[in-house]
């Protein structure tokens, strides 16, 4: 069963367009939603949740149309948009008292368990929590009403490496039993290398790809070679940059033919992101 299915999502702003966004996420998996700042990650997540009006597109969550069953489906979704930045001067126990009234499947025992597990003090105010603890509080709320789909917008940004690693391990733990899925956006590519099963890469409002992490990385080569070879590959490469020692560039594997003197290797997600961002730039080529 698909936890989330987005088909042909389009949304236009004056200076930004989401174009034909398609995403499918099965239950039991983690999908990393990656893209540079302003690429459209938050707009996509908000569109999925009907927080912004889309021009076209179908959104299904747990097999049901989201627009038609919004209230019902929200019972099964947990989300965190940039941590918890509402009611920051309220104690979390007071916020929880309000939130739990809205959820039919709320389980106080589960909530207490997660408070203990995440070492959350219910008497603390939201503003007294670290960024990591805020995300954990959002997760504790979501898991206490048995959310099947977690939509998290940049949950790891602002966290130190230890907290980030802990959170990513938690994500893996949460999907282990195959009944939950997580879609989380990030621009920190190492997060995805650690825990994502699927990658959806968005650049300038357009989905570049939405496939398994290995397939995504496996689609590209990172090339390195002397400057005089650039001419041979220029038209095939997604983008490249030159420096005093030669050039480096990104190419789709199916467009690459071995050339003497040009080395190739699997790129990192960060490198793929950088070269795609460069492609968008009119002056993709620059000298360092």
């Amino acid at each position, binding site marked *: 069963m698909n936890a989330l299915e987005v088909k042909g999502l389009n949304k236009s702003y004056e200076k930004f367009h989401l174009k034909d966004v398609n995403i499918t996420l099965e239950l039991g998996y983690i999908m990393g939603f990656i893209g540079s700042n302003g690429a459209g990650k938050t707009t996509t997540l908000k569109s999925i949740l009907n*927080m912004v009006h889309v021009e076209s597109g179908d959104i299904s969550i747990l097999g049901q149309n989201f627009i038609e069953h919004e209230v019902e489906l*929200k*019972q099964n979704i947990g989300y965190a948009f940039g941590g918890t930045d*509402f009611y920051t001067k309220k104690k979390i126990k007071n916020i929880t008292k*309000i*939130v739990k009234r*809205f959820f039919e499947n709320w389980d106080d025992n589960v909530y207490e368990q997660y408070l203990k597990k995440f070492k959350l003090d219910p008497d603390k105010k939201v503003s007294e929590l670290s960024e990591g603890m805020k995300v954990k509080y959002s997760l504790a709320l979501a898991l206490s009403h048995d959310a099947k789909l977690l939509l998290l917008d940049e949950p790891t940004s602002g966290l130190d490496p230890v907290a980030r690693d802990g959170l990513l391990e938690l994500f893996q733990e949460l999907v282990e039993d195959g009944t939950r899925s997580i879609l989380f956006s990030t621009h920190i590519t190492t997060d995805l290398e650690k825990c994502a099963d699927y990658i959806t890469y968005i650049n300038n409002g357009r989905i570049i790809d939405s496939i398994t992490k290995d397939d995504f990385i496996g689609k590209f080569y990172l090339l390195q070679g002397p400057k005089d070879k650039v001419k041979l590959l220029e038209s095939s490469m997604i983008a490249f940059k030159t420096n005093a020692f030669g050039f480096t560039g990104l190419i789709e594997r199916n467009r690459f033919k071995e050339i003497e003197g040009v080395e190739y290797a699997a790129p990192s997600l960060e490198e793929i992101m950088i070269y795609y961002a460069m492609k968008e730039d009119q002056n993709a080529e620059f000298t360092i």
Partner: protein
Amino acid sequence: MLNLLYKDLRLAINPLFFILPLFTGALMLIPGWLYFIVLLYFCFIMLPNVLGGFKAQNDLMFSIMLPVRKKDIVAARILSFMTYELIYVIIAVVFAAINLRLYNDWPMFFLSPNIAFFGLIFIMFGLVNITLFPIYFKTAYNYGWAAIMANIMGVCFAVGMEILALKVEKFYVFMHLWNPTDIIYHWILLIIGIVFFIITAWIAYLISIKRFEKVDI
């Protein structure tokens, strides 16, 4: 929707605003005063502060993430304001009753705080609500213009009624009827006020949900 109303009253609105009407209501004890001001304090103080509180606490994002419909958010917000308006009115009524006992013979230049006066108060709050919410729900976030316009509406109505009482003798006489057999007319005005208060809230709700549905959050 009731949960949202509970959220607005328990979490979003500072408890101080439950106490404030006790102090403003006590101003009813000033003899021969402009008693519209007592209720206008709701518009001057509470209205912008509460809407500012919603904005500062990022309530819109909090509410929209809950399993509720947008129209429930509108209904809860309007009902929470109506609840506070009623609290202001009820407390003012208590002090007004004391006023009428204390200053029965006091010469009244302005309108007396009697039953008919509270009919006008309900009309004033009805006008405030129908001005405030349709403007506010264009964004459900920016409240400055909505609060200013609602205040202007409230003040204009209050000033208009006081001027009417000063200039039109019949209206002044009607508003100061004391004969027990005529009090029925004051009750009629009060009921008209309450009905107006409810109808304007309903219209404000219908306009606001249309506007709020179009808002991108």
